[in-house]
């Protein structure tokens, strides 16, 4: 058992953003532990796109049943790859796919598991291997060390820098046959619904305007949508707002929702529960607008305005529009 393995995804002719985040960390682990770096591809996708990032071996399971994600079939494929490649560390994304697969693949491989990792230490030629994650909704941080291998690790999305290209390199592709049968799928996808309304993806947006309970109702989000549009940003929400049904769950920013790391994060009517703050720790500038001067969002904000958002956002939209217009 040796090596660092990532489950990769090729999307629109390039490794996905989360794949590059995994590969970046895998490179660091592979160098620190002096172990080879491999990746798995389920279905199609050009393996050479991964070699360019330092991946030496690509294990591929290509099967018509893997075209669409289905947990049971993906698990069977991933389990077979892991038993063939026998890596010491398996890196998976901390997104909805990783949340679905990581623990179950760890169970099948009798592996250890550390989820939602935000930092990796690999010092002293690998003698000190340590993973950091948040705990207690971001009120604490914990360093965790493995006791057994293999070890499954999921990385918190948008926390690690994407891998840099290592240059033109070659690698080896190893096809793996997995006998899959539609009857092995114990769940069936009925439909997939896209919910994001604005043009910019929340996770990619350079500006995020988020609203919380302090907006007082769903109609408050209209102002935020307008501000986001002027700033070419996306709209997010706190759990209080998504739980109230004011906006869809896919707009939730925070520990349970999405992690964002925009240049500018504007939190409007958001109290700043640690659960929410855990999702914005990568934001470069945080502006908080809240009627309550004691709101804990001001503890993490760089710029704060105490007041009624209804009085502040309209002139803010007007000013921004002036700037954009000329």
């Amino acid at each position, binding site marked *: 058992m040796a090596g660092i393995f990532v489950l990769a995804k090729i999307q629109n002719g390039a490794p996905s953003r989360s794949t590059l985040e995994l590969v970046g960390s895998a490179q660091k682990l592979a160098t620190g532990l002096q172990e080879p770096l491999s990746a798995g591809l389920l279905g199609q996708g050009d393996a050479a796109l991964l070699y360019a990032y330092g991946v030496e071996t690509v294990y591929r399971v290509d099967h018509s049943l893997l075209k669409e994600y289905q947990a049971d079939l993906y698990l069977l494929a991933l389990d077979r790859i892991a038993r063939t490649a026998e890596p010491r560390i398996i890196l998976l994304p901390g997104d909805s796919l990783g949340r679905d697969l990581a623990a179950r693949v760890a169970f099948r491989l009798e592996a250890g598991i550390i989820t939602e990792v935000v930092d990796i230490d690999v010092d002293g030629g690998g003698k000190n291997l340590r993973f950091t994650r948040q705990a207690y909704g971001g009120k604490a941080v914990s360093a965790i060390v493995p006791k057994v291998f293999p070890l499954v690790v999921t990385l918190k999305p948008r926390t690690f820098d994407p891998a840099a290209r290592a240059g033109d390199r070659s690698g080896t592709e190893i096809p793996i046959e997995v006998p899959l049968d539609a009857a092995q799928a114990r769940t069936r996808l*009925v439909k997939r619904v896209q919910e994001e309304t604005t043009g910019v993806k929340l996770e990619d947006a350079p500006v995020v305007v988020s609203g919380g309970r302090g907006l007082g109702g769903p109609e408050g989000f209209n102002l935020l949508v307008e501000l986001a549009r002027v700033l070419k940003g996306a709209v997010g929400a706190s759990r209080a707002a998504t739980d109230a049904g004011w906006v869809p769950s896919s707009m939730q920013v925070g520990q349970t929702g999405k992690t964002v790391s925009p240049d500018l994060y504007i939190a409007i009517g958001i109290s700043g529960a640690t659960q929410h703050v855990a999702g914005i720790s990568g934001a470069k500038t945080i502006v908080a607008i809240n009627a309550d001067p004691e709101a804990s969002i001001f503890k993490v904000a760089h710029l704060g305005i105490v007041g009624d958002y209804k009085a502040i956002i309209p002139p803010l939209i007007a000013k921004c529009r002036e700037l954009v217009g000329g």
Partner: protein
Amino acid sequence: MRIVVSVKQIIDPELPSSQFKIDPGTKRQQPDGHPLVISPYDENALELALQLKAQTSGHVTVLSAGQSSAVSALRKGLAMGADEAALISDPALEGSDAFGIAAALAHGIQKLGSPDLVLCGCESGDWADRIVGPILAEALGIPCITYVARVEKQNGRLQAQRVVEEGYEIWEVTSPALLTILSHELNVPRYPKVKDIMAASRRPIPTWSLSDIGLEAGRIGKAVTRVEIESLSLPTRESHCEFLEGEPDEQVATLIAKLREKKVI
């Protein structure tokens, strides 16, 4: 439909950070007599189970693996409307990781009989490892759907709305299955009525040891954890908030100037 909801009792996660203290010995939050609650998403799971029970004339059991104090979490579950409760508590459970807890829950569920549905919160309010639910499904050998906000029964099958980055997916599954539950406007936990709290306080709740559920002590506990918590510490935050004063127009003007200075707009 027979439903088992697994609940974890934790220290109230809504406590302000200023009251959050770490016990360096256990590398856990210091209890300090703070209120103990059902982990929030577990309560959403329980609410969903009670709604399904009403639609399908089902039976709901709340199950927990933990310290004896967790009896109060189970009592709340009964007061909310669960039919039955059971606690798995044993000194050998101390220091168990998610695999140990899931093994205990799986044995507890088998002792209860074969449920049609097992519900868990999608992540706990303390460590949020997101592991116990999916590995419990593995241990029980049943399918699992994670981060489910809504469930509907359709022609004998369950349709689960799973929240993903771009929106949501509807997955269909036949019983038995395990779902991990996310909060949603339709599963806001109900408040138990005073008379139901009174009634629940008189209900006996069985406490099962490991031998009661047929689990060998060697399979769980601190000695067999697969990872070790090396440290738990407070995060360092060096942000200092600059408050912008004046009337809204002045505040907005200053904000724009500051943001242009930082070159973020």
